[in-house]
């Protein structure tokens, strides 16, 4: 069963989601369950007096509409309620043939009062790996218990853990976020924040977790395990709005030996680079130093190396840029990134290494990069062929761009909705914030499907509630995605148009050269000497079959057809 997608809502809807008891995002799955010691206070806690008024509406048995088992049993036999609870999960599941209005009515019923012992039973179920049952009981407990109850936060936390274990991460994150926002129980908070931190490693709601939780936490009370991360996130938020000075106040609190300190340095450098009008050597050195920082991930170190290469390229230090590209380390048999090869190809072209450039462009034709949006590739290939006076291939390479992107160019000229263009959309989705949002949206879709599978086990109330959570999250994620997509496709369209313009110029220039009269006595330039193979090298003739381990090794032999200068 798929989650019903609602109309896009505004950010206010997200705030509303957070305000509701059941709206929280699930943290990333964690293998180690929280210590069972937390069960003790739950068992000992007497039912709070404030629960009494809540019992009144709940005590009247609901209509014959299906209800969560625990909830149904509670009014009849308060003492036996938890025991009977697991007996009827199927009855609680939404029936296919049931009228929608009846289901809605059931969901709108006030929550039934449940015995507080249901919390202990839920914990037992959780530790017995019965997450569905545990989640249903915990939700029943949360619904019928005031937030002042000392087990209320624990119930939210364990409900989140249940949902995460069932791969409903967003649902879990919403509950963790609630615990973090309400901070009603200081004992729960460290575990909650740690779980949320783990969640940030997978596609997640950035607004909810990064900005509204870690970006706005009161840092005074945080445990060491998450304070660095929170400081880092708050610094990032400041950097995004252009307050480097404020960001620094957070970053200076970071443990120098921690990974967040390195990431903060990287973020600061990137921000400075974005704002810098001129690149100085100090910035290059800083990035270089960062590229050797073992605390950073391999990907982040590679980013730093790429930054070094790009900065050197900007300063026309092409040899230096090549050295930086060589430093990029890829896992075994990893094809790498297309931009890496393209940038290196431009660098080699500027160094006059035309054949090496063609070698890298051959790499970019590999199936791994077939879907990449690289209009520059065609321009560069045409440029190389032109420089080798291979005018026919140059013209063909130039034409290839207009041929391959004809639909997209047509869509741009016709002022169509560019988000509907397959290539531009894919290009926009391949990087940056659009990519992250697309991934989050995709994960929401998957989790929405997963949710349907637990409809029976969760009972109607929890199921309906989670449906709402996912519907709202989906609507907001979709809105954000569309907004980012609009901007990103426009940028990609600009790139394509610029490339198209250059290609047309190239075609014109090559066309003129193609029909240029060759002077009498003209001689071809001396062919360039190719470096011979050393004894340590081995050569495999390329016949169109790409091997990932060869992608950086292509060597092209191509004659120049240029005429020697001074021919009469």
């Amino acid at each position, binding site marked *: 069963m798929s989650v019903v997608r609602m109309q896009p809502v505004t950010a206010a809807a997200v705030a509303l989601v957070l305000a509701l008891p059941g709206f929280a995002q699930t943290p990333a799955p964690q293998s180690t369950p929280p210590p069972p010691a937390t069960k003790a206070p739950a068992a000992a806690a007497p039912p709070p007096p404030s629960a009494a008024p809540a019992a009144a509406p709940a005590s009247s048995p609901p209509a014959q509409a299906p209800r969560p088992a625990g909830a149904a049993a509670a009014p009849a036999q308060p003492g036996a309620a938890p025991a009977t609870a697991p007996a009827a999960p199927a009855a609680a599941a939404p029936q296919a043939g049931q009228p929608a209005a009846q289901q809605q009515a059931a969901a709108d019923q006030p929550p039934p009062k449940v015995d507080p012992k249901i919390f202990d039973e839920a914990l037992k179920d959780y530790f017995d790996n019965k997450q569905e049952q545990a989640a249903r009981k915990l939700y029943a407990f949360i619904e019928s218990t005031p937030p002042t109850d000392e087990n209320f936060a624990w119930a939210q936390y364990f409900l989140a853990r249940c949902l995460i274990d069932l791969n409903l991460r967003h649902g879990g994150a919403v509950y963790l976020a609630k615990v973090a926002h309400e901070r009603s129980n200081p004992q729960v908070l460290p575990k909650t924040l740690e779980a949320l931190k783990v969640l940030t490693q997978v596609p997640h709601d950035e607004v909810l977790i990064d900005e509204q939780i870690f970006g706005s936490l009161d840092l005074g009370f945080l445990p060491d395990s998450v304070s660095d991360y929170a400081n880092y996130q708050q610094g990032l938020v400041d950097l995004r709005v252009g307050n480097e000075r404020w960001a620094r106040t957070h970053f200076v609190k970071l443990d120098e030996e921690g990974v967040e300190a390195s990431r903060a340095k990287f973020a600061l450098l990137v921000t400075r680079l974005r704002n810098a009008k001129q690149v100085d050597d100090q910035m290059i050195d800083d990035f270089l130093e960062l590229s050797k920082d073992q605390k950073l991930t391999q990907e982040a170190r590679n980013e730093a190396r790429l930054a070094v290469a790009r900065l050197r390229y900007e300063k026309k230090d092409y040899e230096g840029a090549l050295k930086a590209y060589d430093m990029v380390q890829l896992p075994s*048999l990893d094809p790498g990134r297309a931009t890496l090869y393209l940038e290196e190809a431009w660098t080699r072209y500027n160094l006059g290494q035309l*054949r090496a450039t*063609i*070698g890298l462009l*051959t790499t970019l034709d590999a199936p791994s990069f077939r879907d990449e949006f690289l209009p520059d590739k065609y321009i560069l290939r045409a440029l190389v062929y032109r420089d*080798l006076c*291979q005018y*026919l*291939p140059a013209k*063909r390479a130039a034409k290839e761009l207009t041929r391959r992107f004809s639909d997209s160019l047509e869509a741009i000229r016709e002022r169509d909705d560019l988000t509907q263009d397959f290539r531009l959309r894919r290009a926009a989705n391949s990087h940056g914030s659009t990519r992250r949002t697309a991934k989050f949206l995709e994960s929401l879709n998957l989790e929405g499907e997963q949710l349907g599978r637990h409809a029976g086990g969760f009972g109607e109330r929890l199921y309906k509630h989670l449906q709402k959570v996912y519907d709202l999250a989906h609507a907001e994620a979709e809105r954000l995605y569309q907004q980012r997509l609009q901007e990103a496709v426009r940028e990609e369209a600009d790139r394509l148009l610029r490339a198209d313009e250059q290609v047309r110029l190239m075609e014109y220039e090559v066309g003129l050269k193609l029909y240029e009269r060759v002077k009498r006595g003209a001689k071809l330039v001396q062919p360039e000497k190719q470096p011979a*193979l050393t*004894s*340590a*090298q*081995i*050569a*495999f*003739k*390329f016949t169109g079959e790409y*091997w990932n*381990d*060869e992608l950086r*090794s*292509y*060597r*092209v*032999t*191509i*004659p120049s057809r240029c005429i020697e200068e001074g021919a009469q």
Partner: protein
Amino acid sequence: MKRTLLLLVCLAPVLAHAQGEELENPGTVLAVQDRTYRMASELWIGIGVAPLDAFYKGVTGQVGYVYHFSDSFAWQVGRGLLSYNIKTGLRNQLETQFGVSPTAFPQLNWIVGSDVMWTPIYGKTSWLNSSVGHFEVFGTLGGSVVNERIAADVASGSGQTVFRPAIHLGLGARLFTSKNVSFRLDFSNEFVIYKGLEANILLVQLALALNFGGTE
């Protein structure tokens, strides 16, 4: 004259096509890589079988040392083989039912020798499209001394042995698993020479090879 003209007319489209192809797709592409695995000093130990003789099957153990001068040429400085022989059913039948003397069956005891090794093929292969394996194929040619038992005193357990010269010819493949460890599969034949070609001893062997001092 007419023939020449006809030949030219026939060849012209072929030449034009070749030229057109060269104009449109100029150049050739090679994937040039550093050899991932290079051998230097190799010590190997292997087990195998001598399956050819109808009267016994030899289970062999062999060790050897190879010095690699280059990636394609090496000297197998020494190798030594010891054979544990198992009677076949045919021999049992001959001995028990037909009264053939046990001393009438010569069999292999051990072999020592030295060869040159030529490795013309080095390649790589894909395993389930998820990993790349490297291999090489080599040939060996050399000389051996074969020790055979040609007669046996069954009662005392002793026997008479002879030494025979032999020409060793082999073909093998090596699969690299790391810079220092590889596995060899060898097929070789000892052409035992004594007053002409006396016998063939075919050997099939699987060996573990350890490489020392190979360059990165």
